[in-house]
């Protein structure tokens, strides 16, 4: 037998067959020849005759080999006319068709891997490029997934609805608060919000039949915690008794709060968040049942919430939950008016009863809401205001940090999408040069009868394999990058703990897998099509084949480079505009000196509990701080300037005969505020000590005291205030804002001074009319230092600690401004980074194309130089080619960029989408980098030795 196998093996030439299949064919044929030989012997033939009879069975080995190969190729095994087997032409016997395709694909994959190993350099560059492109997309998408798409961390989040009121006019309220849980619009025509009054919540709980439970909550802000080590600050949230049960949140230790905890007279109990429990109590289960002092009031720790429940509203992280009914005890000088129907501050989420349609539940709630707001002694709305309530899915209605991050993330997603396209174009360019190198292989395949579709499939398989490996690398890259990104977002927003759980979940994985496949197909198409466009005869003759294929490869590769450059220009223009915006905003004159200014808060809750007034403590602290070396000025105010928050008052417009309202920002400030901030007093004077004393007296008078102080409050106004409200008269001594209604009798404000204009809450906003009043009580301190403000921080902490007062939010004003500009900084930095990445990728693409070009045209360049072309001409030839492509790309990119950057719209400041300076800078940068990328291959071209080049083929 082995003799016959050797006989067959020596004669049969098979290629393109799997090894095991080849062995099978050889053995099968050898066995048959042996049968024929044995048969002849049995018929009495002599040994040599029997052998020759067997030999005669196969005379044309070449044809046999080709026929066997051809029958192995599924495309070529089409039956003769009239035969019905087309659909299963690929089916291996006894196996389903898919398995057969699978094994073919596997064969392609293995073949592809072998080809990659042959050119490790190109493969590594392609993989890296893809990993960067796909990785950037995965990283941004995983943040989008965590911020925008992740389901609320509660049981059946799809059943939860958020109540949102709408009306065509602002409600007439005593007071309304919202804390970024949902998108509010407090303007006429289209007002909406999701804060409701306590009485309305009680009505919903008592009267509605559409819900199985109601979870209401409100921000408790910053609260002090004592009773467990040093005084600390925590972020609290008031919740209704049904909050945890309705959401289906389980305790990690102890128990959660129930309805009974939120009733008058219930023993005070709180629930800690898992994170706070871990951070402050090291996850000690013994803490359950112990007492903690919240704003000085004792509460029992009932339990700890489960770890996954970081926050209901995305990114709004709370440390502990307090029953709603304890709010009056925890708020200093609680005004019962703040709990009536005219004070809206509670967010309501409810779980729909199974079988109840949202529309039906909504109709019921609208009825309750209209009842509460249209009727009563002092209606909040009129019928014409069309008050209503919408039940929104809680998943999308509770926006939280989504509102802050959605625009930057959208922009970044578009940017990384462009990066991926550039990466694809880049890899496609590399693949095309590979396709050129493999032209002979393709020509052989085609001439052996492989169909073009089969070749295209081989190419696409190779591309997808490359993309999948790239995607796997990208996942590793993205895990790291998305964490970095989340940390960056948190730090920039001044909130290191955004409660974002950024992880590669199934959705991110599916996203990466699909974009990898898509990318593989995208960058595989060009080389696949190019690969099949082979003119067989010249390609097989090799030398001519290269020349014939040259012109077309040039145009395909060139087009890819143009596309890369154009996309890069778009990304760079966007990045440039965002960077310019950031520069413009940083350069905005705030009206006060922002350098060498340190701001921080000191919580006075405990000082009050110790029956020292906050005014005394503030004055004492001011004195101590001003004695610190390096400190040149100390003051305090109710808010930090440029922190994004502001207070305003509306009042009857002074001097107006009709009843139009004027509006101005208001800030309560301590002694020496204007000196410290370097605001100059233009006329009049600063506040006097007796005015501060009067403010303290007003504040400390019992709220219920009917005998109101009827003298006007002194105010210092800015110049714009004067221009707006007292343009004609001497403003000093004028009063404004007096009210004679019996409920809110107020003598108004009297202007005692005029101060220079300054921005209040936001750098983007124009300066608005502003007035300052004397502060009473606690506030944020502002320290002016001679040198670096950071040097005094430890002394400040030491002073506060001696007085057992918690210090928080210690920042320089420059840091404060950076936080205010977090959105701009985030998109400017990241898009700047991605712009450089795009530039790098595009120049690699350009470099790759040109160096391939130069090596291909070595012979031509050699001839030119042999005929006397100077080196400069050759240099021009190559650089000129590259520069032309770059210029075409830059022109196209500029046109596209001007169109695309219009979507940046509201993010830009002081710069238009078609900013000539930015466009010019990008064009210059791009052309410079392109020429640099061209120079390396061009210099190589000039060093071509004509003699060697002519011997090249």
């Amino acid at each position, binding site marked *: *037998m082995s003799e016959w196998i050797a006989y067959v093996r020596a004669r049969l030439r098979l290629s393109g067959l799997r090894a095991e299949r080849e062995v*099978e*064919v050889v*053995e*099968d*044929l050898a*066995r*048959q*020849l*042996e*049968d*024929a030989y044995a*048969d002849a012997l049995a018929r009495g033939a002599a040994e040599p005759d029997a052998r020759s009879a067997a030999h*005669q*069975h*196969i*005379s*044309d*080995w070449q*044809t*046999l080999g080709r*026929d*066997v190969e*051809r*029958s*192995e190729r*599924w495309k070529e*095994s089409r*039956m*003769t006319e*009239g*035969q*019905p*087997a087309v659909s*299963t*032409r*690929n*089916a*291996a*016997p*006894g196996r389903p068709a898919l398995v057969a395709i699978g094994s073919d694909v596997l064969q392609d994959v293995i073949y592809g891997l072998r080809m990659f190993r042959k050119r490790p350099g190109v493969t590594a560059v392609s993989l890296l490029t893809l990993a960067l492109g796909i990785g950037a997309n995965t990283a941004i998408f995983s943040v989008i997934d965590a911020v925008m798409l992740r389901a609320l961390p509660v049981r059946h989040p799809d059943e939860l609805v958020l109540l949102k009121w709408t009306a065509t006019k602002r409600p007439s309220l005593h007071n309304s608060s919202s804390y970024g849980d949902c998108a509010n619009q407090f303007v006429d025509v289209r007002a909406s919000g999701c804060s409701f009054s306590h009485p309305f919540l009680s009505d919903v709980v008592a009267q509605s039949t559409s819900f199985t439970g109601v979870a209401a909550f409100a921000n408790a802000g910053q609260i002090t915690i004592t009773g467990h080590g040093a005084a600390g600050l925590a972020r609290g949230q008031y919740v209704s008794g049904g909050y945890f049960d309705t959401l289906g949140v389980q305790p990690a230790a102890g128990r959660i709060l129930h309805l009974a905890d939120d009733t008058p007279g219930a023993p005070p109990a709180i629930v800690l968040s898992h994170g706070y429990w871990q951070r402050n109590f090291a996850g000690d289960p013994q803490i359950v049942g112990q007492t903690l002092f919240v704003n000085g009031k004792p509460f029992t720790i009932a339990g700890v919430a489960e770890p996954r429940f970081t926050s209901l509203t995305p990114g709004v992280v709370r440390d502990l939950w307090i029953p709603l009914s304890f709010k009056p005890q925890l708020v200093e000088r609680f005004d019962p008016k703040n709990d009536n129907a005219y004070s809206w501050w509670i967010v309501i989420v409810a779980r729909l009863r199974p079988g109840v349609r949202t529309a039906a539940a909504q109709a019921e709630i609208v009825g309750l809401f209209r009842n509460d707001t249209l009727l009563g002694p002092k209606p909040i709305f009129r019928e014409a205001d069309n008050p209503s309530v919408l039940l929104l899915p809680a998943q999308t209605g509770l926006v939280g940090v989504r509102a802050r991050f959605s625009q930057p993330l959208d922009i970044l997603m578009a940017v990384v999408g462009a990066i991926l396209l550039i990466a694809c174009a880049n890899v496609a360019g590399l693949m095309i040069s590979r396709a050129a190198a493999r032209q002979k292989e393709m020509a052989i395949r085609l001439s052996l009868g492989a169909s073009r579709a089969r070749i295209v499939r081989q190419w696409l398989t190779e591309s997808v394999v490359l993309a999948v490996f790239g995607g796997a690398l990208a996942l590793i890259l993205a895990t790291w990058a998305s964490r970095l990104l989340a940390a960056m977002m948190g730090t920039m927003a001044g909130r290191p703990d955004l409660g974002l759980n950024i992880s590669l979940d199934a959705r991110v994985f599916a996203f990466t897998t699909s974009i990898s496949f898509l990318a593989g197909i995208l960058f595989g198409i060009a080389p696949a099509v190019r690969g099949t466009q082979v003119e067989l005869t010249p390609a097989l003759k090799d030398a001519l084949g290269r020349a014939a294929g040259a012109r077309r490869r040039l145009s395909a590769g060139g087009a890819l480079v143009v596309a890369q450059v154009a996309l890069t220009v778009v990304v760079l223009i966007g990045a440039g505009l965002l960077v310019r915006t950031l520069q413009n905003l940083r350069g905005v004159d705030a009206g006060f000196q922002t350098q060498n200014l340190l701001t921080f808060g000191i919580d006075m809750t405990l000082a009050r509990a110790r029956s020292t007034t906050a005014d005394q403590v503030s004055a004492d602290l001011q004195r101590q701080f001003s004695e610190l070396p390096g400190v040149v000025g100390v003051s305090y105010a109710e808010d930090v300037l440029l922190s994004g928050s502001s207070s305003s008052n509306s009042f009857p417009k002074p001097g107006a005969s009709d009843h139009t309202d004027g509006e101005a920002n208001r800030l309560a400030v301590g002694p020496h505020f204007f000196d410290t901030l370097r605001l100059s007093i233009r006329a009049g004077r600063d506040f006097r000590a007796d005015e501060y004393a009067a403010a303290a007296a007003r504040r400390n008078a019992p709220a219920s005291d009917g005998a109101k102080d009827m003298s006007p409050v002194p105010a210092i106004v800015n110049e714009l205030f004067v221009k707006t409200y007292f343009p004609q008269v001497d403003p000093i001594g004028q009063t404004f804002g007096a009210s004679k209604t019996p409920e809110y009798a107020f003598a108004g404000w009297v202007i005692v001074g005029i101060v220079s204009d300054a921005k209040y809450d936001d750098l983007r906003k124009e300066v608005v009319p502003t007035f300052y009043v004397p502060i009473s009580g606690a506030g944020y301190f502002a320290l002016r230092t001679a040198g670096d403000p950071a040097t005094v921080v430890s002394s400040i902490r030491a002073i506060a600690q001696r007085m057992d007062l918690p210090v928080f939010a210690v920042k320089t004003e420059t840091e404060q401004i950076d936080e205010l500009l977090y959105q701009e900084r985030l998109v400017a930095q990241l898009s700047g980074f991605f712009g450089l990445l795009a530039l790098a990728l595009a120049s690699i693409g350009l470099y790759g194309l040109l160096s391939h070009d130069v090596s291909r045209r070595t012979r031509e360049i050699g001839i030119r130089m042999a005929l006397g072309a100077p080196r400069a001409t050759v240099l021009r030839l190559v650089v000129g080619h590259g520069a032309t492509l770059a210029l075409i790309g830059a022109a196209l990119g500029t046109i596209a960029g001007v169109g695309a950057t219009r979507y940046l719209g509201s993010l830009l400041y002081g710069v238009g989408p078609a900013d000539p300076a930015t466009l010019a800078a990008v064009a210059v940068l791009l052309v410079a980098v392109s020429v640099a990328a061209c120079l390396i291959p061009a210099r190589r071209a000039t060093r071509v030795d004509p003699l060697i080049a002519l011997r090249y083929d």
Partner: protein
Amino acid sequence: MFNGNLKKGSAELLVLSLVEQRPRHGYDIGKLIEARSRGRIQFRIGSLYPILCRLEHRGLIAGRWVERAGERRRRYWRLTPFGRKCLADQRGVWKEFVVTVNQVMRAGHV
């Protein structure tokens, strides 16, 4: 002996019908064709083998290595269910073709 085109056109039908009743190995199929046609149709191994490969790839027949006691293993071919269906179709077509050709020729004689 018939000419090559006639042989080629009928080869697949012949192979399929020979493995219809029981699995056979390659050399056996060639010998059977020769024997049943009383030597008038002959396939050498070199021409029969690609036909077998093609039929296998189209899923009409399936090969299996079988080792009988005292013999070396041989590849036996059997008809797949799909092959059985095709064979029935082709048989019908073939019979019809023969009848039609005969009719045409008879008409020529009359």
